[in-house]
C-alpha cells in the first residue's frame, strides 16, 4: 500500500513539478556554458589585440616605427580575433548543444517510465528465453 502510494505520488510529480525543476536546471546549465566560455566578455573584446601586445608608435614621426606599429597591431588583433572566434564558436556550439540537449532530456523524461518498463520487460524476456 505504501509502495503504491509512493508510486502514485511519484507519477504526479514526474509529470508536473519535475518538469519545472528540469527547466530550472537547464537554465542554469545554459547560463553556465555562456559564463564558462566568457561569451559576453570575448564578444566585447573580439577584435582587441592579443594580450595587449602592441608596439609603441614612437614620439617622433618615423616610417619604420609607424610600419612596425601598424604591422604588430594588425598581427596582434588577428591572433586575438582568431583565438577569440574559436572560443566563441565553441561556446555558442556548446550553448546550442545544451539547449538541444535539454530538449532531448525533456523528451526522455516524458518517456522515461515507459523506457524503464520496456527495458525491464525486454531484459526479463531475454533472460528467460
Amino acid at each position, binding site marked *: 500500500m505504501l509502495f503504491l502510494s509512493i508510486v502514485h505520488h511519484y507519477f504526479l510529480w514526474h509529470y508536473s513539478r519535475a518538469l519545472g525543476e528540469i527547466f530550472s536546471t537547464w537554465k542554469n546549465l545554459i547560463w553556465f556554458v555562456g559564463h564558462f566560455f566568457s561569451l559576453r566578455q570575448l564578444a566585447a573584446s573580439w577584435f582587441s589585440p592579443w*594580450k595587449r601586445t602592441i608596439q609603441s608608435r614612437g614620439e617622433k614621426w618615423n616610417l619604420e616605427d609607424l610600419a612596425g606599429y601598424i604591422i604588430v597591431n594588425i598581427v596582434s588583433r588577428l591572433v586575438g580575433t582568431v583565438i577569440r572566434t574559436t572560443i566563441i564558436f565553441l561556446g555558442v556550439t556548446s550553448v546550442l548543444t545544451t539547449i538541444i540537449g535539454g530538449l532531448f532530456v525533456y523528451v526522455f523524461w516524458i518517456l522515461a517510465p515507459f*523506457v524503464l518498463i520496456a527495458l525491464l520487460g525486454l531484459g526479463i524476456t531475454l533472460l528467460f528465453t
Partner: protein
Amino acid sequence: MNTLRDDIQQYRPAIQLDALASRKTLHGVRIFLFLVFACAGAGYLASTYFLSGQYSQQLLGVGFVSLALWLEQILAFAYSNSFYFRKLNSLLGLSEKNKTGTTYDVAEVIWHNQEDMAEAFCNSELGSLVLFRAGTNQTAITEYLTNARQQLTADTIILPEDEIFSLIGLGKHIFKHDTAFANMLAHSGVTQETFLGALRWVVGSVHQEKRAARWWSQDNLSRTKGIGREWSYGYAYLLQKFARDIRSSAVFSTLSANTPYALEKIAEIESSLARVKEANVLLIGEAGVGKVDLVMAVQSRMQTGKSLASIRGQQMIVLDTNRLFATHQDRQSLELTILGMFEEAVLAGNIVIVIENLSVFMREAENMGIFIPELIDQYLAAPNVHIIATDTPGSYHTYLETKGGFVRRFTEVLIDAPDLSATTRVLQAVALQYEVTYESFFTYSALQALTTAADRYVVEGVLPDKAIALLIDVASAAKQQGSTIITQDFVYKVVSEKTGVPAGPISDNERETLLHLKDKLHQHVVGQEVALSAIARTMRRARAGIQAPDKPLGSFLFLGPTGVGKTETAKALATVFFGGEDKLERIDMSEFSGGDAVSKLIGDGASAGILPTILREHPYSVILLDEFEKADQSVHDIFLQVLDEGVFTDSRGAKVNARNTIIIATSNAGSQLILNTVSQRKELATLSAEIIDSIIKAGIYRPELINRFDSTIIFEPLSVGEQTEVASLMIGALYQRVKERGYQLNVKEDLLTVLVEKGYNPEFGARPMQRVLQDVIEEKIAQKIISGTVQKGDSIKLELADFTEAELNV
C-alpha cells in the same frame, strides 16, 4: 493559517521513501546497479566476439534489467532531491521567492512523532547531534523523556508567512514552550545561548553541506572561472616572477566571507578599487585578523563575475617581497625591477598588486636606499593599476602616517578583530575540519570557552587567529590524552596548564585556596588582618568572574610604613596564584621620576621599555610597582589606562596586554599618619578614608588614580606580638639555612624575647628585626663555625647567657 502539521504533508512521499531505503542506501544501490550493467555489457561483448555468442542473450538480459533498475534509481534520486533541497535557495538567501513553509529536515525530524515534537527532536539524528554539541548528557535526556511532561504537538506551530521555518525555528519553539526541556538543559549546565548556538552550528553546517552537494545550482556553477577573460589584457611577466600564492597568507577559510561584517568590508574594498583614479586600498588591521582572507574573497568575486562591473576580470598578484629583496643586491637593479613591474601592470590594464605589510616593504627598500613613495607615486594615481596593501595599526601610525601624501593615495579600510560571537562562528567551521584530523568531538560550549580563553588569556595575536591556534592546541592535547569529547572544562584545563593562570570553572583545590585565601596568605605574612581580608575578597571576586574581564586580574595600592609586609604579601599572592615567588616582577618606580620616565617605562621606538618587556616575557605574574609615589605624574597617567583597560600601547604602536597580571603598587605615602593613628590607639579601618584624603590633598596621588585600583589596602605597623611571630619566621628560615650547611640550630626563648625587644620599631617594621638577627645570631654562628668549636652534624645551641651585653647591643 498554515500549521506545521499541514505543511509537512508535502514531504510525506519523500519521508516514506526514505523509510523504505535511505538516501545513502539508494546511492549505494545506484552504483551497484551501474556496475552490474557495465559488467553485463562488457560480458555481452566478450561473449559475442570471443565465445561465439554463448550466454550473450542472458548477459544482454541482465544488462537491460540492471539498466532499467539503474534508471529507476536515477528517477528515485531526482524525486528525493526535489524534496531534500526544497526551500534551500530561500533559506540561504539566494532567492526571494517562496519564503514561507518549512524544510525537509523539520519534516524528517518530527514526522514519526507529531504529537510530541520534543521527543521527536531528541530522538532524531540531527536533534541528538544538537543536544550533544550543546553538552547535554544522555542520562538527562532519557530522564527528561521518561518523566511526565507537557507535550507539544505539530498543530501548535503556526508557520510565519515571511520566513522559512527551519530546524532552528523548531528548536527555539521547543525551548520556549517546553519548560521541562529548558529545565533539562539548565540542569545539564546548558544555557539558552549555548543551546541556540549549538542549534545554529549543526543546522547551519547541514545547510552548507546541502549547498555544496547541489552542483547544478547557479550558485555553485558560478564559482568556475570563465576562460579567456584576461585575453584582452596584457602580460605581467616580471610581476609573475615575483608573485606568490595568496593562500599562503590566509588565516581561515573564506567561509567567514559570508558574515555581514566581511560583506560590508568587501563592498568597501570593491568600491575603492572601482574608482577612476587612485584606486588603491590600504587594509589596516592587526596580524591574523583576516585581511588576506578578505582580499581572497574579493579576488574570487572578481574572477567569477560577482564583483562590481568595472573591476570584473581583474587579476590579483601578491608581491613576494622577500624574493624581490633576496634577488637584488644593489639599489639600481631593484629600482629598475620595481619600475618594470609597475610599468607592466599599467600596460596589462587589469592588475591589482597586493603588497602585504607595506611598511616592512618600504623600510626594507629604504635600507637599500630606495624611497618607495617617490618611486611609485606616478603609478598610484594611474587609472590602470591598483594596489591593495595591508599593514598593522601600529606600523600605520608610527611609520606610514608620517609619509603624508603617499598614504592619501590609498583608501583606508579598517579591519577590526571579530567580536567573540563572530569568532565562535569562525571556530565552528574550523572545528569540523579538526574533528576529522584529531578524531575528536567539540561541544559548542568548548568553542565558546576557546573564544573566551583566547581573548582573555592568550596575550599574543588577535582574534580569530589566536582562537584557531588554541583550538588546534586543545585538539592535539585531547588526542594525546585519549579524550575524544572536548568540553569547556577540558579547554580551560589545557589553558591553565599552558598559562599557569587558573581559568574556567573553579576546581576543588582552587575553591579551597580561594575560600581560605586569607589563611594561605597568613602562612607568609604576619598580622595585617584587615589588609589580607580585603585582598582575599577582591581576588575571590576576580576569580568568580564578577569583575570586568577587560582589566588586570586584580590591582591593589598597598599603603603603609616600611617593613610591615607589603612586599611579602605581593610574594604570597604570586605563590598562591601563579605557583611561585619567581612569578613576582618588581619594578622600582623611583627610577621613573625624571624627564625620560615615560620612554624608560614604555620604550622610545629604539628600545622596548621595561613594562612592555616584562609583560611580554611574563604575561602571567604579579607586577610589583615599588615606591609608586616616587614615579612621575606622566607614569601615573599610563597606569590609569593599564588599570582601567588592562592594555596599553607601547612606543612602537603595539598593544600590550596586562589582563593576566595582578598589579600591586606599594607606597610609603601617608605612613606618618598611619603611625600617628595607631599610636593614638584609634581604629585604623575607620580612618582609612581620612588617610586616603590626606594623600590626595598632599598631591601624591590623584583621586582618579586611586579609584582605578580594585582596592587601596592600608598596612598597619606591627605590634610586639606580631614582631615576635616575624622573628620566629626569620629564625625558622635561618634554621633551614644552617641545616643546609650541616648543623642543627636551637635558639632558646629567652634570647628570642630579648632580640624582639631590641629589634622592635613601629616606624621601620620588621627590617630592624632582620638586622638584629643578622648582627647577633648569625654573627655568633659564623664565629662558632670559623673557630671550629662546632663540627658538621653538631647542634648549635644559643641562649641569652651565651651573649655579652656588648654583643647584644651591636
